[in-house]
């Protein structure tokens, strides 16, 4: 059925957005850890 690809598209889009957001969370977390480590070193 033609409309089936819309269904797939919607499900994929949902998880893409979630993955993207969680990815940004991870990168923010890593950067924060990094800066904390540098802070510790300066001490």
């Amino acid at each position, binding site marked *: 059925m033609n*409309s*089936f690809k819309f*269904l797939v598209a*919607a*499900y994929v889009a*949902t998880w893409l957005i979630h993955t993207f957001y969680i990815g940004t*969370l991870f990168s923010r977390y890593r950067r924060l850890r990094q800066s904390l480590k540098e802070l510790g070193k300066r001490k």
Partner: protein
Amino acid sequence: MKKLFLILAGLTALFLAYATYLALKVAPTDALQGDVYRIIYYHVPSAWTAFLLFFINFIASVQYLARTKASLQKAVQWVVIAIGVIGVIATFLPQVQALLPTGMRPSAVATTVLAIPAFYFLLGWKFPGDRMDMLALTAAEVGVVFCTIVLVTGPIWARPVWGIWWAPGDIRLTSTLVLWLIYVSYLVLRRFSNSAQTQIIAAALAVFGALDVPLVYFSIWFFRTQHPQPVIGGGGSMDPRMLHTLLISWMAFLCFAFLVCWSRFRLELLKREAEQAEAMESLVGAGTAAKASVPLSRSAR
């Protein structure tokens, strides 16, 4: 804590997989729309989750503002209790019951109304001080993510069913778009604020946004009645198996949202700790350095 998080994450993943399985295989096919209607199992739970998160943002913002003054805090508490009591009593009055749309049970409405004081006091107890503001930020940000999903899956669903991507008069989708805009502007404000009291400014904006929601809804609702619309299906009762799947799916997404919020909250906590540490660190480091090198008071000479 970390172990607990991982266990919960695993369980949530299983739950989501199960919900998706139900949505794709178990739930019956819609007679009119065919399989594409199954978008509903992602679209609607995301919308409900987003609304719940925005609601939490509102409660947290009100409470944060109320905390700036003891007398205000008392007053707001009584208002919240009054809303709960009056709301529950009102739903059992026959006059009010007559106003409720058909199919909405008074007991269900009463439970929803009770959620306001329940959330207010629960959050107030669990999130002292600046954590309340961090909760508001977390809820808004994760809410925007879920709202984005609603806005993306909505047109994907509308296209095969209605033949158009976007129905400007569709009240649910359009008001969700406005909601999204409001909370994005909230996040932008937090991002670009250079105030030492961003929290208060942001909380005020959140209150404004929340006050706007009913007005948005009514204005679009009325706007729609005056303009030609594509025939939008809907209404009618749902197959119980569909409803069941929908609720399971919502539960799964709620668990997922909870975990995302938890991570986001931890991140914010860590960020603020780091900021404070850095502010104080520069104090120790720079202070000793200055003592060693710079003559104490250039100004006095």
